[in-house]
């Protein structure tokens, strides 16, 4: 049974220099796992994520990464991801090499990765400069029509990390609601770490729901609230107020560093992280 603490799971499965995808499209973003990676001071990661929002803002600002593969990087509905911006614009805290796609291109890359195909296909990137700045975006001629179709190389992370609603005692994982490209990212990876809201005796998954069988999961950790400030459908809502507040926190290097110091380095796990925020008057 692959059930572990989050600390053990990150220690065992995330190594310096790994290609790491923390996925979750607005919903079920594995924030607690990202914080644990910061806490364990992983370095030189190649971070992969369609939407490097607050989570990668924190991890990149904390110096975990020197590569980023992505398709949209901002604070959704609020504005910039200031730490990501400063890494790209001013190489602070260190240079960040970006590998940029469109959402459709990156989705095709995850699908190719999950399918263990050497490339993914899409009708995309038409007339854009993305193919100019990303040499990974190429094309093939259709063997039937001769039409040129865009290609992307597969994404096969060393480890994918997800947050989900439930796991059972065997380690089978259930996700429900907006599931983004999480299943593809999970099945594309060499290792898969999942944090969940709760571990239950029986999953009782509805027919045709999104389930990852235990035998493809490297480790499951029970981390209630582990998606905050994103949300877990059926458990808690998105903390829009914090997402707005993050704009201020992240705008300034020192304020950001103090936040990471106080809440991430200054706590030993997600429970303490939440307690520290509450102690400072954050309502959650």
């Amino acid at each position, binding site marked *: 049974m692959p059930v572990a603490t989050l600390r053990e799971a990150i220690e065992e499965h995330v190594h310096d220099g790994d290609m790491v995808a923390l996925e979750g*499209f*607005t*919903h079920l973003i594995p924030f607690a796992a990202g914080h644990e990676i910061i806490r364990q001071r992983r370095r030189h990661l190649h971070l992969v994520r*369609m*939407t490097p929002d607050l989570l990668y803002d924190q991890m990149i600002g904390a110096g975990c990464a020197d590569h980023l593969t*992505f*398709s*949209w*990087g*901002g604070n*959704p*509905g*609020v504005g910039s*991801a200031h730490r990501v*911006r400063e890494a*790209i*614009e001013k190489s602070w805290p260190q240079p960040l090499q970006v590998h*940029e796609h*469109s*959402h*459709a*291109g990156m*989705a*095709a890359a995850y699908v190719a990765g999950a399918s263990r195909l050497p490339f993914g296909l899409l*009708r*995309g*990137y*038409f*007339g*854009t*400069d*993305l193919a100019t*700045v990303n040499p990974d975006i190429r094309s093939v001629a259709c063997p039937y029509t001769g039409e040129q179709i865009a290609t992307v190389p597969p994404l096969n992370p060393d480890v994918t990390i997800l947050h989900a609603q439930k796991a059972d005692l065997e380690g089978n994982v259930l996700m429900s*609601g*907006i*599931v*983004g*490209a999480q*299943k*593809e990212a999970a099945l594309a990876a060499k290792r898969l770490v999942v944090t969940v*809201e709760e571990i239950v005796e029986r999953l009782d998954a509805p027919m045709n729901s*999104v389930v990852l069988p235990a035998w493809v999961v490297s480790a499951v950790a029970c981390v*209630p*609230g582990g998606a*905050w*400030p994103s*949300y877990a*459908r059926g*458990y*808690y*809502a*998105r*903390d*829009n*107020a*914090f997402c707005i507040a993050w704009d201020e926190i992240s705008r300034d290097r020192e304020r950001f560093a103090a936040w990471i110091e106080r809440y991430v380095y200054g706590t030993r796990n997600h*429970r303490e992280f*939440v307690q520290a925020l509450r102690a400072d008057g954050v*309502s*959650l």
Partner: protein
Amino acid sequence: MMTVTAARMLWDRAVCFVGIGLPSAAANLARLLKAPDIVLIYESGTIGTRPNVLPLSIGDGELADTATCVVPLPEIFAYWLQAGRVDLGFLGAAQVDRFGNLNSTVIGPYDRPQTRLPGAGGAPEIALHAKQVYVIIKQSPRTFVPSLDFVSSAGFLGGNGERARRGAPGRGPQAIITDYGLMRPDPTTDEFVLVARYEHVTVAAAVAACGWPLRTGAAVEVIAPPTLEELEALRELHARTRAAHAVRVKLPI
């Protein structure tokens, strides 16, 4: 006013691929006012959503709970957008040129950016595959530029039919809705021209707020001011949204 103008340009049963912010507000306003069977698709995988409040993010829970179905993201792009099922895509950007090409990637050179923007996201393929695109963007000489710093998504490329000649499946941008009025593409040159203005805006002001020499259509119509019904519906929508977003989150820990 941009929201109301965009909402008026929607029709019932249209399949709309919607982003966050003004497009989402416009599409939902249209749904509430006159297009109850408009189909809203958000790139997060929610098809046929009928949110009661506006989402802050593209993947808020409200979108999933009110959807006809929720599908994985690769499916949205492959089976729905790329398959040509979307009638109308809404796009915003940091820069637009006279042919409706958009930049949402970077100001300055890509390798040494002056301002790094969030990036293209779903836009390149929305711009390519949606049967038509509406662009919603505030007008200023800094946003309506003679030449983009980076092409994130294609409008009419170099104009004069280049987009169609290169075989793009969608017809491209058919309207730019600004805070000065409405631009439409010239059917021959593909260049966007001013075809309507808000009551309080002069043509000269609209021309001055554009970084390329903006031409005007044969007649520049005046866009009727928002009706009481429109204003009220929009106000209520925003009020519901504010109230919903003000609810404090309670973690189960």
